[in-house]
């Protein structure tokens, strides 16, 4: 592998990893506040992308308002999903709630497939498609948008959680819901805030990545899976850990193709990512068990 090639693998991995990170952020946020893993997170990525295409191509709305409108519609759907499916099942255990999110994902995907058809579509690029050279490695301008959006969202999310009252309240209800209630935080409202924010994050990711990755009613499944892996690598702890997890996954996948390990061709790139995930989960499980013994 030459240096040029190495750099190209790195840059391609970075842009792909940013996609995983963007999806992973929504998982982390909802898990932190509600202890639910929201398996419908990928569907919000799909909704963002598909809505932006439909609004631009079929309704003829110009790009910027169309993108904003897509995110707003996805947020409303996220709020409806929380109020109808999650909140009304308040007595249910976390596992049941997780299963409810799977049901919601199937419902959203099914409706999207019926309404918009099953063809993959491509919304227009934000700023052209002439590759940009980065020390000899080539990157698509849309991929720069994805990387930039991921960085921006991570910073904003971090500031929001640690420097605003609402953000602190969110954090408090995730750390200790009982104590948060005692100091007057409406923890149920916080659940709604988390779902709405996560839907917005997913939809933002969706509108930014769709021109590059194409989108269709079923992209949520695969993206959701990769985002889940990113969030797991980051331990569902903080936005920054999730982003590092996502980028790590993207870069490892990319380099796995480049390194010729005899029989290990590109067919094994997903396997390599899963092995890393398993290793991390095993280490974490061991640490959790040790902590429990300790307390």
């Amino acid at each position, binding site marked *: *592998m*030459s240096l040029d*090639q190495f750099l*190209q*693998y790195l840059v*391609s*991995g970075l*842009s*792909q990893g940013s*996609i995983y990170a963007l999806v992973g952020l929504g998982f982390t946020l909802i898990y932190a506040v509600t202890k639910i893993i929201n398996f419908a997170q990928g569907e919000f990525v799909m909704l963002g992308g598909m809505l932006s295409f439909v609004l631009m191509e079929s309704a003829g709305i110009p790009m910027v308002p169309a993108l904003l409108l897509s995110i707003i519609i996805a947020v409303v759907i996220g709020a409806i999903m929380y109020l109808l499916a999650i909140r009304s099942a308040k007595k249910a255990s976390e596992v049941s709630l997780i299963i409810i999110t799977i049901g919601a994902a199937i419902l959203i995907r099914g409706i999207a*497939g019926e309404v918009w*058809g*099953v*063809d*993959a*579509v*491509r919304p227009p690029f934000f700023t052209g*498609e002439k*590759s940009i050279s980065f020390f000899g490695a*080539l*990157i*698509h301008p849309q*991929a720069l948008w994805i990387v930039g959006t991921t960085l921006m969202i991570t910073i904003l999310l971090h500031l929001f959680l640690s420097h605003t009252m609402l953000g602190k309240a969110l954090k408090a209800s995730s750390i200790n819901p009982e104590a948060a209630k005692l100091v007057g935080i409406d923890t149920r409202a916080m659940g709604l805030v988390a779902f709405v924010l996560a839907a917005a994050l997913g939809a933002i990711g969706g509108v930014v*990545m769709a021109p*590059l*990755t*194409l989108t*269709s009613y079923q*992209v949520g*499944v*695969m*993206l959701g899976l990769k985002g889940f892996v990113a969030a797991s690598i980051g331990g569902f702890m903080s936005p920054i850990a999730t982003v590092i997890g996502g980028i790590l996954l993207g870069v490892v*996948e*990319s*380099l*796995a*193709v*480049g390194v010729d390990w005899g029989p290990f*061709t*590109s*067919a094994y*790139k*997903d396997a390599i990512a899963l092995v890393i995930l398993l290793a991390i989960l095993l280490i974490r499980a061991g640490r959790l068990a040790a902590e429990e013994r300790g307390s």
Partner: protein
Amino acid sequence: MRKWFYLLLAVVMLAAAIPLAGVGCSSEKEAYVVGAIFSTSGAASDLGVPEERTVNMMVEEINDNGGINGHKLKVIVYNDESKTENALNLATKLMEQDQVLAIIGPTTTGSSLAIIDAVTTGKTPLVSCAASIDIVTPIEDRFWVFKTPQTDVQAIREIYGYFEEEGITKIALITDTSSYGAAGRKYLLEEKSTYGITVVDDQTFNSGDTNMQSQLTHIKGTSAQAVICWATNKESAIVAQDMQTLEMTIPLFCSHGVANQAFIDQAGEAANGVILPAGKLLVVDDVPDSDPQEEVLTKYRDDYEALYGAGSVNTFGGHAYDALSMVVMALEEMDEDLSTAEAREFIRDYIEDDVEDWPGTGGVFTMSPTDHLGMAPGSLALIKIEDGEWTWLQ
């Protein structure tokens, strides 16, 4: 409880008798009923929808012109939702409940393979609209089965033949790990030595992957003179786009699976320059008058686009046209007083013995007891996408 059951039974039997009585008093001749299984929803709906539209269009035209020897034609279309596991039930329903004389479809290779045993046991002719050569081989086990689309191997030979002419000897493969991509990869590797071709890189990706840059970076580092991508629309579009991002200058060849407008829409500017083998239906205007298929291609395209819009025609609907046409030709020659079982046997024998030098949309067909595809070489055109349009690469 039991009383209710008998009452219900009586109602059901009465209801069943009504349509029979209807036929009895009608002066019209009994309709010829043909079955079809298409994937009009799900992953293969890009293929299944034009097939269903084609069949509806043909049925209307035939019946408007007085039917087949005075019999109306009726085609019962079932949707397998692109799921292999649905096909068997639908085939059984068509044969036993609907008493169809022949079945056309299914759309996909998986569904077609799934019902071969059933139609063989049920002694009903099947004209499949799916790609794989395994649908009609081994011929001893495929007595009742025919198919109309070109196979992977024919498409690959078309590309390799072009490489031979152009002096391209070193190529790279990038294929989907799905059954479609894997079959393509297998035949690409099997056929290469006949044409003096060396595969210098052999990369794969998974269906649903959104970035193939790493694999293409690997290919870029080899001496490959051309890339062949064997996958369906979305992944092929991403490969084309990623090659553009990486500023690769070697040509990209795709499979006949992307021979539809959706691929051009999805790949956008990156589609330009892509070369693929496909039926001549995409380039009707480039087909010379001397070509035996010219007449049928022009008629089918004009009829289809009059109903569904300019530029809507694609080769998949053409496969259904060829399949139903063969069945209709058999029905035209059939005696009217045959039982269902005799009629099914007649149709099978007719297609095998009498479809000879017949120009369809997919190629010129000559069926025989040893060849249930029967497509002559030269049926495929090598097509290049230029400025978002299909052009015949001669």
